């Protein structure tokens, strides 16, 4: 097994949350960014988002960076550990995609 398998498969919600936090965002911003990135397909409910953010904070994949100036909403941003998790996930997704394409081509 490759060293990169320190990380398991991420859920879609977590993956998109991490991607959205390459730039600092507050909760509502994350929700909007994820919907935008997924072409309107993925909607994160506040309950789901809150739980995921707390888990990501505990894992050290994101950090909270205090309040946004104008609105006093708490903002979050991805950490180095989070970026590494994304890298591994992208590699995993690429593997999945390749396998799918290959099988479909071979069985056309």
């Amino acid at each position, binding site marked *: 097994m490759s060293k990169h398998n320190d990380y398991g498969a991420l*859920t*879609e*919600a977590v993956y998109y949350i991490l991607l959205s936090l390459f730039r600092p965002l*507050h*909760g*509502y911003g994350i*929700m909007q960014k994820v*919907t935008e990135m997924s072409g309107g397909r993925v*909607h*994160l*409910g*506040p*309950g*789901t*988002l*809150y*739980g995921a953010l707390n888990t990501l904070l505990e894992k050290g994949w994101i950090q909270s960076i205090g309040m946004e100036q104008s609105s006093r*909403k*708490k903002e979050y941003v991805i950490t180095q550990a989070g970026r590494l998790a994304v890298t591994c996930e992208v590699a995993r997704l690429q593997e999945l995609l390749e396998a799918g394409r290959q099988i479909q081509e071979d069985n056309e």
Partner: protein
Amino acid sequence: MRRTIWKAYYNYEKEEQWLNKMSEKGLALVDYFWIRYVFEDCHPGEYIYRIELLEHFSNHPESQSYLHFVEDMDIEIVGKWLRWVILRKKADSGSFDIYTDYDSRIRHCYRVWHWFRFFAVIEFICFSMQIPAFVSVTVADRTIWHPYLFTTSLLGIMVVSFVLLGLQFRRKAKQYEKEKNIYET
């Protein structure tokens, strides 16, 4: 124009459906406590309502943290009672669901099941405590038609109702768990 309606709901899903139906008719819930609902006129379908059972009472720091987060998402807290909260969001800002993946839905279903199970146990203890009184009065008066019949039956019915209602949510959680074998959301 404000309208106050007194209604007792045990099944929060039915309660939520009712609030959304009222919203569609142009009446938006603006205040809530226990069985008291206060409505105000609104555009038909202006708001979407959702009800949630929190893990802790609404004044607990964990709940406060969650509720602040929710308010930052342009969601209004319409009312709170014990661990229940009623939330609303404007319909024109898109769909509104609190939980959007199976894991969180499953956790919420179990939370609701445990809530009803807890009260069923309390009621059952009260029911059991009533039995000796019921029996002794029945024997003494040689009839079952006395006040303890009413109180004992009422408690018995409540125990059964809470268990049946709670089990509905446990069943839902099990269904979601099955779906989770295939899908995340």
